[in-house]
């Protein structure tokens, strides 16, 4: 069953097309890695899934909710509750402790009772290896720890799909692995994930599917083994060659 569907989706910023005629089906439990050169539209595609960017043409559906280009913004909150997002810059709320960052969604949006939300948040933070840091504020945590809190915060809403937009790009090299490790465990647990990443070895090892984008279009959509060992498209090959060099 597909959880995320794009049908001929287009997005323009002003007169500039950033996504063109994108069609896509993400199956439940699938991990799709979105890769491609800077400016390809990867972030824009991801942000259309939870409608942080409204698309300008076509139709998107998430877990059965159909979103057109004119869906009222009030109806978008229902969609967003089903989609978790992890940002490159973490975007934790600095005035709340790690525990409060994770709890506030369930308590203020889902009206989960406080004690239950607290137990759930403690459990999630424990799972991402932060049992010892729950009372700390984001400013007291390292980048890797902050990003793991951000993952727990998204998971607390029990989303049907998780979006990761370069979740490790802002991290010091020694912290990349702890975050990728958490993502890998999520994938193994059957979480549906759309992952924009520059970590090619992670994409190859963890993803079920590679979606290669350039100039606002999906250029190639293939199994990781096929994509990395025998890319079909000339642009994929050029991209991979450059990625290997760097």
């Amino acid at each position, binding site marked *: 069953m597909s959880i995320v569907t794009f049908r001929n989706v287009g997005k323009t910023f002003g007169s500039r097309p950033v996504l063109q005629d994108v069609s896509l089906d993400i199956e439940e439990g699938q991990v799709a890695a979105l890769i491609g050169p800077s400016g390809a539209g990867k972030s824009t595609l991801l942000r259309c899934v*939870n409608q*942080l960017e409204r698309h300008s043409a076509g139709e998107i559906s998430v877990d059965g909710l159909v979103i057109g280009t004119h869906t009222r913004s009030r109806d978008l*909150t*229902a*969609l*967003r*509750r089903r*989609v*978790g*997002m992890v*940002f490159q*810059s973490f*975007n*934790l*709320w*600095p*005035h*709340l402790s790690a525990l409060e960052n994770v709890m*506030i*969604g369930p308590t*203020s*949006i889902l009206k989960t009772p406080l004690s239950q939300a607290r137990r759930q948040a403690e459990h999630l933070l424990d799972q991402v290896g932060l049992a010892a840091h729950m009372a700390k*504020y*984001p*400013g*007291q945590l390292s980048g890797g720890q902050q990003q793991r809190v*951000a993952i727990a*915060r*998204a998971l607390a*809403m029990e989303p049907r799909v998780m979006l990761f937009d370069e979740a490790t790009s802002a991290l010091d090299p020694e912290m990349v692995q702890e975050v990728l490790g958490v993502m890998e465990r999520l994938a193994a647990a059957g979480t549906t994930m759309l992952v924009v990443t520059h970590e090619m070895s992670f994409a190859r090892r963890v993803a079920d599917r590679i979606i290669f984008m350039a100039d606002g279009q999906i250029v190639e959509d293939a199994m990781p083994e096929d994509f990395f060992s025998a890319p079909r498209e000339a642009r994929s090959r050029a991209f991979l060659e450059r990625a290997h060099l760097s």
Partner: protein
Amino acid sequence: MIDWHFIAIIMPRLLRACGQTMGISLCSLSLATILGLSVALLRLSPIRVLGTAAWTYVWLVRGTPLLLQLFALYYAVPLTGLRLDPWLAGVLALGFNSAAYFSEIFRAAIQSIPPGQSEAAIAIGMGPATTLWKIVLPQALRPALPPYIGQAITLIKNSSLVSVIAVPDLMQTAQSIYSVTFKVVEVMLATGVLYLFMTTLLQIAQTWLERRLNYYTVK
């Protein structure tokens, strides 16, 4: 030579008037805070007419003297058949006036919060009102505090203007004492100290609140 004995004699009367000034200031400060926040939120609203209305309010109020606004409320409003007593006219004028300045302080503070903060809230499905109250405003308090206190201090000093419509505040009382006794220096010395006392309370409040609001930035 300063007549200290005279100051001691007029002190109880000045203290009572000081209480009046505090009452007026507190009432108009409350009004200005609520109104100022509302105007700031209108300014930031995506609905154009609301933004324009808020802009016009700030433009009118900041662009004209407070004294003129006070006269407008006290002398012009009665032409419509609605008479305000001097105390109320004073509180309203001070409140409406400071609200314009407060709204700009609040707007700047809200806009200083990185957009990623509310984006993360929207992304988990938080509505705009909850995002504002639980994510943006708590963080905006810290940058708003110093200019807010500064404007509140201005409000206390500006409250002396209500003396012109015969509200028995500290300044009006001081004037009525020296106009009979001619001891201007003694009266103004005592009055100045009392204004300084009131504004100092706000300075202390600022220091205390800044320390409280820093809870999450102190490592």
